[in-house]
């Protein structure tokens, strides 16, 4: 899981990091926070998108190897939230990259975030299946049952 803070007020970020703590312990689901898109399957994005961080967001998304899923967190990530009409805000994450799971809230509760991540894991399996169907047949032996 890669966590990228687009332009959040840090509210959602703190709740996201709270998921790693002993109280919520997201590692129960085998999920750990990594600092590197190349090692990540889930991209977790908080905050609004602006022209500057849009490029970074796209770059990070591109550097994640397929299959991958994106989780947008918080009102800002979903739609731009209260900053929607600001001059520099483009809107939600899905204006830039395809989003698979939306987690609402301002800030989103850790329980909701964990729920979103677990949902993303399920979606990951589906995407993986599609992905392995699309790869050439000689690589199919790698296909693993969900």
């Amino acid at each position, binding site marked *: 899981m890669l966590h990228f803070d687009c332009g959040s007020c840090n509210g959602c970020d703190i709740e996201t990091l709270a998921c790693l703590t002993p109280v919520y312990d997201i590692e129960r689901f*085998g999920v750990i926070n990594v600092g590197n898109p190349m090692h990540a399957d889930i991209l977790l994005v908080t905050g609004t998108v602006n022209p500057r961080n849009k490029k970074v967001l796209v770059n990070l998304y591109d550097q994640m190897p397929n299959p991958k899923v994106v989780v947008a967190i918080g009102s800002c990530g979903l739609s731009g939230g209260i900053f929607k009409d600001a001059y520099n805000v483009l809107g939600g994450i899905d204006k830039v990259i395809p989003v698979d799971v939306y987690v609402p809230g301002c800030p989103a509760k850790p329980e909701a975030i964990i729920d979103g991540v677990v949902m993303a894991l399920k979606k990951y399996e589906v995407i993986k299946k599609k992905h392995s169907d699309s790869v050439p047949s000689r690589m199919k032996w790698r296909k*693993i049952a969900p």
Partner: protein
Amino acid sequence: MRETLLAIFIGLFATPLLGGLINGLDRIITARLQGRIGPPVWQPFYDVIKLLSKEKMVVNVWQAFCAYAYLSAAAISVVLFFLKSDLLLILFIQAVGAVFVVIGALSSTSPFSQVGAHRELLQILSYEPLLILVVAGIYLEIGSFKIDDIYAWGQPLIFKLPFLFIALGYALTIKLRKSPFDLSTSHHGHQEIVKGVLTDYSGPFLALIEIGHWYDIILILGLCSLFWATGWIGMIILVAITYFIEILIDNVTARMTWRWMIGYVWAMGLTLSIVNLIWINLA
């Protein structure tokens, strides 16, 4: 002949399973020490299988070469260990794998990867002399580098080589990528610059390196087990205690700088080794 084949089979296939299992247990124990529940014990396997099924993505195609070279060097060294071959030779082959990881990381221009690679080299620099001295100590005690001679030796080596065992502990900590020596890359994201030496490896190639790391874990724990080579039970208890202490150290210390690492490991490790070597020489 059958024994040889069995040893090769165990070395090739059973060790990664065992290594992954140890890794899973490690993650659970670490989580419990931190007041968490932790992942399922099979999580490392899930991760590797997932990575293998991911898209192949490289920065430089020679990374693929280096990943395969690392895996094969690690596997060969473990197989040789189970064939009861020469300890020094096993160390050399294990070093080949470590060097290939570094070369692969250096083949990317990302500064994160480069810095990680150099830190990995500094780690090799720190633990390599200790490993060689440990082997030299074993030779001085029993007069052979061959592992079957160690098994044939009547009494546990740890009584004669206690300081060298501690020195081996330093090497073990570095090799397992545990704090305070997890400079090049760490299992814990919270103290990591991106992912150090592994930054630009991804997907299946990262999985290969992970499997190689499992071989490495088994090799180095096997080296520890030689200090109580008289019976299975003693061996397992010794390794279990050592590994638990490693996890404990990992959880109570923070990452330090490379200067501190080289200074500390060379000063402490070499002193301990030399004292122990003098002891055997005189005894």
